């Protein structure tokens, strides 16, 4: 019998190679990511000046559309927009009062009457940024959708590695280890896509309840339950925030057991490459998933990750908006 028919996926990106949206990193080639890093370098330079502002996006309007609260990410995007002189409209819908009973399409149509050129979207449900592209001509930037993707986080993580890794010579042959609740993490999903795209190997580490076996089918990805083994020889180790409510859902026996097995400590980091970086996407539960001292140590680039958020997002906005018809 013939296999099931799968309709073609609706077009999500790109006319003539120009990127229309940043939904996830699958649609971006390694070359496009490298070009984005070069633009980020320029933006980072702007952010070191006394006047941290350029007129590049004057006349463009950026809407931040946060269905799920995230003050940090929203502020970072708004700073990135304003530093390029774009106008910013913020829709912090927070809880669900706005969306209850209203279709996503109607919500967007209402907001779209305000004519933004680009929307930065955060939503608790995977796929919402994709859905929105069907109902607006504006560019869509995914600022985190459910467990699926958080592409600007992955971009700033890789950018930080490129910036901070001593004697950086590319991602080929590098090993990134991500530790924690992989199952529920969009940061892990976007990072594993991007690091492997750039040539690195990714090792995912955590208790099996938080580490879906299917992810091992992704090229360049391995799965490992022992922290020591996962960290061995790694060039970057990223600890993920542990949502403390996971215990209630029966996914973890206790915090103590998690800490004992998976907390990133200076002792474990001694097994990594001598120049390995310690990363964390924030916000940190100090001494839960990462030893407080390690988070403040020289190996830690957590502050650089935060600082690089703005220039990376500036580059994303510039890349998507300039040259858009």
């Amino acid at each position: 019998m013939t296999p099931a028919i799968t309709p073609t996926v609706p077009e999500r990106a790109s006319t003539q190679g120009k990127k229309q949206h940043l939904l996830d990193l699958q649609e971006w080639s390694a070359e496009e990511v490298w070009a984005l890093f070069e633009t980020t370098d320029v933006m980072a330079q702007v952010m070191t000046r006394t006047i941290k502002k350029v007129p590049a996006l004057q006349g463009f309007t950026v809407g931040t559309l946060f269905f799920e609260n995230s003050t940090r990410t929203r502020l970072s995007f708004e700073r990135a927009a304003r530093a390029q002189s774009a106008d910013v409209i913020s829709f912090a819908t927070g809880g669900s009062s706005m969306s209850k009973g209203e279709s996503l399409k109607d919500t967007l149509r209402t907001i779209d009457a305000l004519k933004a050129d680009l929307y930065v979207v955060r939503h608790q449900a995977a796929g919402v940024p994709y859905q929105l592209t069907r109902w607006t001509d504006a560019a869509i930037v995914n600022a985190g959708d459910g467990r699926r993707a958080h592409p600007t986080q992955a971009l700033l993580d890789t950018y930080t590695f490129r910036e901070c890794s001593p004697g950086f010579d590319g991602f080929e042959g590098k090993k990134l280890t991500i530790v924690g609740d992989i199952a529920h993490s969009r940061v892990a999903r976007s990072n594993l896509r991007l690091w492997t795209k750039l040539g690195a190997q990714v090792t995912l580490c955590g208790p099996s309840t938080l580490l879906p076996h299917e992810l091992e089918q992704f090229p360049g990805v391995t799965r490992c339950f022992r922290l020591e083994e996962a960290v061995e020889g790694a060039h970057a180790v990223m600890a993920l925030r542990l949502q403390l409510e996971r215990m209630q859902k029966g996914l973890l026996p206790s915090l103590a057991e998690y800490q004992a097995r998976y907390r990133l400590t200076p002792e474990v980091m001694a097994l990594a490459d001598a120049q390995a970086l310690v990363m964390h996407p924030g916000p940190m539960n100090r001494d839960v998933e990462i030893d407080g001292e390690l988070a403040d140590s020289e190996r830690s680039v957590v502050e650089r990750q935060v600082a690089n958020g703005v220039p990376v997002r500036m580059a994303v906005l510039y890349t998507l908006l300039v040259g858009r018809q």
Partner: protein
Amino acid sequence: MRRTVLQNAHLIDHRGDHGKADLYLRDDVIEGIDLGGEVAQTIDVAGAVVTPAFIDLHAHLREPGQEVKEDLRSGLGAAVAGGYGTVVSMANTTPVVDEPGLVTEMLSKSEALGLARLRPAAALSRGLQGKQLTDFAALREAGAVMITDDGEPVKDAHLLRRACEYAAELGLVVQTHSEEPGLRQDGVMNEGLVSQRLGLPGNPVAAEAAMIYRDCEVAMLSGGRLHVAHVSSKRGLQVVEWFKAQGAPVTAEVTPHHLTLSDETLEGFDPVYKVAPPLRTHDDVAYLRNALIRGVIDAIGTDHAPHTQAEKERDLLEAPFGIANIEVTFPLLYSELVANGGLELSTLLDLLQGGPARVMGWQVPTLEATRAADLVVLDLETGRRVAPETFKSKAKQSPWTGQVLKGWPVMTFVRGKMVFEREVLSD
């Protein structure tokens, strides 16, 4: 007395292919073949297939209470447009169909409409709460033909056991929506590589297979007739097959969407593909298709589950489960499984006619004289595009939008009356 003739009809029923003939109807029954004589109405069907109208054991018609999604008029209108003459409606309405008065009301309403015949299912538990049984005997008396909490699994195995026992005594079929709640969790799609890729909460095959196993054991224990609704997976169906081999009093149905779509359709994040149980993998689809040929599936049930456009334009966590399909079921399955597959037309027809009848213990419909003149005329030749905006159903969205299909019902007769005629437009 009123006589009608369907001229140049290609007559097919479960007894076989009877070739070209003129089929005579008298009032609400079939009179016979090539009889001649005076008729009030002559309809030339020009060689199209004439066969008994289909029976759907599984449709959500939403009335009472959810008329914004569908009502008896639109739902039964959609049914006849899909070639169905009889529809078993599910009880998960607002209020739930758990009282005889509601059954009576629905029956009288549907008879006044004069579309497809309505055969309501009644809830297994009051308010679908899974706690207290409904009054099976009184509900049967009122006209309910099936007992089911469909939409929800019966969480309490003890309640299901008593339901099967009681229903057996009354000669009622119990139908289950078999998904183990603890394994299903908040899953919105099949759990697997695709759900991991998409970051959507998964609902594993194990939830279905484990619950089918439990439900079948309960049926064996109680001796009741159990009909497993919408089996979606290979493992789920293998459990049914295993029980059937033991002689368990179990039947099973599959849906048109589980026979044609896989979980990869969710890659475009369109909630039109969100359905419970979820669309599975290519392997599952292939296994279900093959099972049709092997004859281990008793019936095709549509699980027609209409929702409003706005509800299907929500995000994938909030959008409701369900696919509206009753109008495209035959053309879809004919085009994909018969015209381009390896399935015999007679097998497909039986899964829509004799199969459902046997599940319910009803007489298998045929074209013999004196039998009910519930008929469908099928055009197996003309390709027509699936255009949800033309649906009789209130749900104007479809996973198959734009697909060109053959095998469209062009006329449907119920009780000898033409209740549907397709506008003769093709492309």
